[in-house]
Structure formats: C-alpha cells, structure tokens
C-alpha cells in the first residue's frame, strides 16, 4: 500500500545501513579485545559444558566405525616432526630409548617403555577425529587404555587431572601440553595409541605415543606424549588454562 521512500530517503537508508554495519564490525572487534567481554562470552562455553554433561552420561561412548570408513590418509595437523633435538635423537633410534614417565600425585611413579606398553592390555577402535577447524577424519587406533597405566601408578585421592607433556615446541616457542579430568582419563575409549591403521604410529601423527580422547576435539589429543603427570590443579602449568590452545583462548572442555 505504501510506496517505498523517495530516492533521498533510500540514499539515507542505505547510508544508515552502511554505517550500522561498519559500527557493528568495528564494535565487535573492539569488544573482542577488551578484558571483560570475552569473559562474558565465555559463559556460553560454560553452559555448553553443563549441557553436554546433562545430556550425556560420563561413560557414553563415541561412535565406532568399520574398516570401510577409514580415511585413505589420516591428516596430520599442527606439528608433523618435532624439532627438539632430544626428540629427534629418540626418533632416529625408533624410540627404543624412549620411555613414558608417569608421575605427580601417584603412589608409584613409573616409566613405561614402548615394549612395556605394547605388552599391556590393548584396545583397537575406529573413530572419527573432529578438529576444531571443522574437518573430520576416520582412523583405526590401537593403544593401551589410560586406565591400565593409571592402575599401575595408583593415583592418590587428591589427583583430579591428568596432564600430558609433549615433545613438540610450537611456533611461539611454547611446548605443547594438554589436560583432561579423571572422567575422561578413565573412559574406556581413552587410550595411549602407538598404532594407526594397523601400523606403527607415524611421526606425523604423534609417534611414539598420542592420546585419544574420543568425545572431545582434536586439540585435546596430544601427540608426542613424553610425560604424564597427575595433578590437583593445572593452574600452575604453563599459562594455567590446561593446555597449549587453552592458553590461547580455546576452551578447556572441547566437547563441541
């Protein structure tokens, strides 16, 4: 019934719309750089975590697939060959001199050689790896359930988190690390994988040992694991957010 506005009105509207968009964009970027606004936004991620815990049980299982679903090549992301000379020396010798140190709040700190890990009860699972970037790949992982290793070292009652220290040093000079709570540490699909698609784990995918935490995003699944520590809090590790990417603004619970 009403005809659209006159040209001048239209020009005004277009200009108004244009400046509204510019204001929105610069406003959002400015807000992102404040201290308080990202903190406020973070409540969304706390709600995510609460909702995920309410909707799924602690022991819910990630989907497992068949051999037919395997990705032709399992994508390597992030580090594909750690530069650390100590790591390279271990790699040159097929990790025969490598041992996983497990210590912290445990009764029996222990070292696990690859041979010892391979001799323990193993689990093989074909699972989907979901990267925070948006892609997914399917691989067949074989390894020791983390719960088996924990049974050997006997965590103390004060232990609440498992921290994984890695051999790879990132572009900014910080060493990669990750942490999970005991729910995920004792989850049946949480394994310390030493094989991918039936072969020894390639260096590009985290040799000699990478952790699989199947209900979280890829960045939780630390590669090149050298040491595992049981702690009461991860606030004292690196920048205190529980992981390399967490220290750079990604959420600690990476369930979505």
């Amino acid at each position: 019934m009403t005809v659209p506005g006159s040209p001048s009105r239209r020009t005004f509207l277009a200009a108004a719309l244009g400046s509204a968009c510019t204001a929105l964009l610069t406003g959002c970027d400015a807000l992102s750089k404040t201290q308080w606004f990202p903190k406020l936004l973070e409540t969304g991620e706390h709600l995510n975590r609460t909702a995920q815990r309410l909707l799924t049980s602690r022991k819910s299982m990630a989907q497992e697939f068949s051999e037919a679903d395997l990705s032709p090549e399992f994508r390597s992301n992030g580090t594909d060959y750690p530069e650390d000379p100590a790591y390279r020396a271990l790699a040159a010798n097929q990790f025969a001199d490598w041992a996983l140190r497990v210590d912290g709040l445990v009764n029996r700190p222990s070292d696990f050689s690859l041979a010892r890990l391979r001799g323990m009860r193993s689990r093989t699972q074909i699972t989907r790896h979901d990267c925070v970037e948006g892609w997914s790949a399917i691989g067949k992982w074989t390894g020791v359930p983390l719960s088996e290793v924990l049974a050997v070292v006997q965590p103390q009652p004060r232990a609440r988190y498992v921290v994984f220290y890695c051999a790879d040093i990132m572009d900014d000079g910080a060493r990669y690390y990750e942490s999970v709570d005991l729910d995920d540490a004792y989850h049946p699909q949480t394994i310390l994988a030493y094989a991918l698609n039936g072969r020894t784990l390639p260096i590009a995918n985290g040799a000699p040992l990478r952790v699989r935490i199947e209900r979280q995003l890829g960045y939780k699944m630390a590669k090149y694991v050298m040491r595992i520590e049981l702690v009461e809090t991860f606030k004292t590790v690196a920048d205190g957010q529980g992981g390399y990417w967490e220290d750079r603004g990604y959420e600690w619970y990476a369930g979505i």
Partner: protein
Amino acid sequence: MNSLVANADERTGRDMGLDNKATSSDSKPYGYPRHRLAVRIMHWVNVLAVIVLLMSGLQIFNVHAALYWGQSSYSGHAPVLQITAMQASDGRPIGVTRVLGYEFQTTGVLGVSTQDGQLTARAFPTWATIPGPQWLAMGRRWHFFFAWVFFVNGALYVAYSVLTRHLNRDLLPTREDWRSIGRSILDHLRLRHPTGEAARHYNVLQKLTYLVVMFALLPLIMLMGLGMSPRLDSVLPGWVDVFGGRQGMRTLHFIIAWAIVLFVLVHVFEVIISGFWNNLRSMITGRYEVRTNPHDSPR
C-alpha cells in the same frame, strides 16, 4: 524466532478495536498497538543474535572452507563446496569457489578479498565475519554465547506464544486461510498487500513462512550445530548418520543458515514494500496504523 512483518496481535487489537469498529468502514486511518512489548523485545534480541551467529559462523567456517557429505572430510570424495585461493600466472591471487564440481572465480568476495588494503586469501571477507580478522577462538566464543541467547530467546518466544495463544490466534492458518492461498500467492507476486481490517492479520503465506522458519529451520539448525559436537554425538552413537554424518550436519548447518538469510531478505523486502515506517514503528513502539483506502485495496 519471531521475525514478524506482522499484522496481528489480535488481543491488543481487540482492546483498541472497540472504538475502531465504528470507523472501520470509512477510510479514516487509525492506530492500534500491534506487537506487545515482549514480542518486540524478543524480535530485536533475535535480530542481534542471528546477525552475530551468521557472522561468527562464517569466521568459524573460514578456518576450513570446505563442506562435505558423510562422516569424514577425508573419504576420497571431493567436497560439495570449497572456497579457496589460487595463483594466476602473473602471481596475482584469485578466489575460486567450487560447488558440486562447478568452478567460479569469486575474487574480491570469496576466496580472495581485501584485508588491510591487501588482497588476502580468506574464504569470506573481513566485513562478513566476527571478528573481522581470522581469530577462531574468539569467533567460537561469540558463536556459542549468542547461540545460547538465540536458544533462550526462542524458547521464551515459543512458551510465550503458546501461553498467550499468540500461536493459535495469529500464526496457525485457519480454514479460510487455506482457501485463500492461491489468491495470497498472486497478491504477493503482484506486490499487493492487504489494507484496512485485513492488514491486522497475517496472511496465509506469512503464517506458513513464520511457522516453517520457527518450527523447522531454527530447530534444525540448532540440531545440526549440536551434531557437530563429538560429546553430544555420544548420546546415542550413530544418531548423526540420520543427517548425513558429522560433516553432513556441518553442511546442512551452513545451508540452513543461508536459508535463514534468504528468509530475512524476503522479510525485510516485504517490510519495506508494505509500509516501511509503519511496520518498523509497530516493532519498536508497537503502534501500527491501519489505513483503509479503497484505491489501495487489492480486494
């Protein structure tokens, strides 16, 4: 959820309608409160949430600017959509968009666009993403926070609409509505809009569109978002297969987002051509003016 060109908060219409009844047959314009305060607030909260969700979503998409069907991105099949940058023979970057095997040069907007005065390889341009520069962690924060705003606002709207009978009275098509569907389609194509008393109700296409958006597109896009969560996929292992697997759900999330953008474009178009200031005012102050001019009337 309640994006409304809206003609019809009938209850408030009726409140005012008492003294309007007498005048409705002559052509004297009169105003009445069309949208209640709660609806107006929820509408604008929703506008903000949808804008932020779209733009922060594009920020997230940009990090891996390809969409697939199935569980995995690496299955041996080509992506269904891919936005990428290539180099021309003279070294200039060119933006390339591939959709279902067709390739388009999209330099300037998709694949390659200007950032800080420089042609830069990025899927969607800085003006379409929150934050502008590539910053995935911050984009995710915006996205998840406003996803909750959007969800809570939408849930409140649905509860409100059911409890106040807004849904029943104003949104569910009546038998007459269904009978008038052919005429309504023609009216829309001719850009004719109801005037007088008829302008106080949603027309049937409008009702159906709102219902499809509110009860199909919006719940689906939320579900597709949840399906991308490895934790939520473990609720019932395999449920994501129903929607084409995790990557299929990511693709559907993207497609539905653009379907919502299409809805918004049509919605804003209809708002403009059916009396922009009147419509806009009715969603700000609530007051809508009914004009009964026989020359304007399509019927």
